[in-house]
């Protein structure tokens, strides 16, 4: 079976400093794959290259076998790669539902239409997406007034607007209360199941990572140092040395033996 994403020797340097140095990995279909590592390890750079925001210096990125390296973000999106951002990026002068409608309008290639009223287009579809993420009762609110967790859910609805095959989520749970995090990750897990999406995400909350990822990769100074199941990764001495520390600041006990998606399954 072809992998959803197949990344080979991805590299990027900023002014001589190798931010990402020959990273290779595969995202399997319907998989939740976590990318973790210290700050400055190159996670964001990696993400930005995957969706085309940054031009890699070299390497290859294949989406279901087709090369997408070097394409601009909008083309990568049209090929079915959705993205959510670490710091939410939304259209603040629009309502929640209009934000989703915007993605649908773009998906249906009607961005240059001058006659119809945008507010009337794809309203039902947008509403369905908001319902999926549990935001239907906030559809008419100004998105500038949303709580952070709700913004993240709205971003997920936007990212799902074009039926993506791959979702890139940059710290999807950052800034949420622990309970919310669990809910959001369960939601993502449901989407993975029902829509057949493959998800690559970064996260600093180890409870989220170890609780919800099928596999975990650890990036340090631009290189992948470990890849494996959550249990393998958390017990790896190298990972503990560069990243995890003694485990005093995350839920060490709980989830150590948790199988992936145990909490997420319905």
């Amino acid at each position: 079976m072809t992998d959803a994403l197949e990344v080979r020797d991805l590299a990027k340097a900023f002014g001589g400093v190798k931010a990402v140095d020959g990273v290779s990995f595969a995202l399997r279909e319907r998989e939740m794959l976590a990318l973790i590592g210290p700050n400055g390890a190159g996670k964001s750079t990696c993400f930005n290259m995957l969706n085309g925001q940054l031009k890699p210096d070299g390497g290859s990125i294949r989406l279901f076998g087709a090369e997408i390296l070097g394409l601009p973000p909008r083309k990568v999106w049209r090929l079915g790669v959705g993205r959510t951002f670490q710091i939410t990026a939304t259209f603040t002068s629009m309502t929640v539902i209009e934000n989703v409608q915007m993605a649908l309008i773009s998906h249906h290639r009607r961005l240059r239409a001058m006659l119809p009223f945008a507010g009337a287009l794809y309203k039902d579809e947008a509403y369905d997406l908001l319902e999926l993420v549990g935001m239907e009762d906030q559809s008419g609110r100004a998105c500038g007034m949303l709580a952070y967790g709700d913004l993240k859910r709205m971003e997920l609805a936007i990212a799902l607007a074009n039926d993506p095959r791959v979702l890139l989520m940059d710290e999807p749970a950052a800034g949420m209360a622990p309970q919310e995090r669990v809910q959001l990750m369960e939601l993502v897990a449901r989407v993975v199941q029902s829509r057949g999406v493959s998800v690559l995400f970064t996260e600093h909350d180890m409870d989220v990572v170890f609780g919800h990822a099928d596999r975990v990769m650890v990036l340090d100074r631009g290189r992948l140092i470990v890849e494996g199941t959550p249990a393998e990764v958390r017990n790896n001495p190298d990972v503990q040395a560069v990243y995890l520390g003694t485990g005093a600041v995350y839920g060490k006990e709980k989830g150590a033996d948790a199988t992936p998606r145990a909490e997420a399954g319905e």
Partner: protein
Amino acid sequence: MKLEIHHLNTWYGRAHILFDVHARVGHGEVVAFLGRNGAGKTTTFASIVGLVPGITGDIVFDGTTVSGRKAHEIVRLGLGYVPEDRRIFTDLTVEENLMVGRQPPREGAPTWTPDMLYTLFPNLAEMRKRPGGQMSGGEQQMLTIARTLMGNPSLVLLDEPSEGLAPKIVEQMAEALTEMKRQGLTIILSEQNLHFARLISDRAYIIEKGRIRYEGTMDELEANPQVRDAYLAV
């Protein structure tokens, strides 16, 4: 009391954000404000330090009412503020960043020199001439704290010091905060990471939708699973 907050209400434009927030923090205490993003932690801190115009209520610091005063006046009374998002000056070197924070020594507060801060945060010592923009997230977070300590505050507000940092760096941060506490500093921090807060705090307030929902010692919070699960379940 080091800091007392009574009936703090804050508005952004017409949006009411904080509702009758109250708190009392004693000398040398470490107190955590827990709650999710958007709960009002950052707004509470910004209100204390005078960065939000629309507030009512009383904020008393060292016996002086500071509500309604300008940020720089409040800070000059010895109330240090470390914002979230590590807002260091990326074009300035580590030394210059520290220079911006410099204030005269004050009574009743530990006096810091750059060298002492380099001891507290050994990573910074190796990069005095490096521009802030070329530092990693963890190093930047340490620099923001060091920069605020240059003002020789007697109380420090730390907004989400662990957010977005690798677990290992968070552990180093906890050590540094413990040392600051040992020097006699009063510390108020906002956190979502209960594990981290537990390592260093004496007491906690839980804030949710702009209201204080719970207050108690860290041990009481530990012993109260309902509260923990309702607001902070891990």
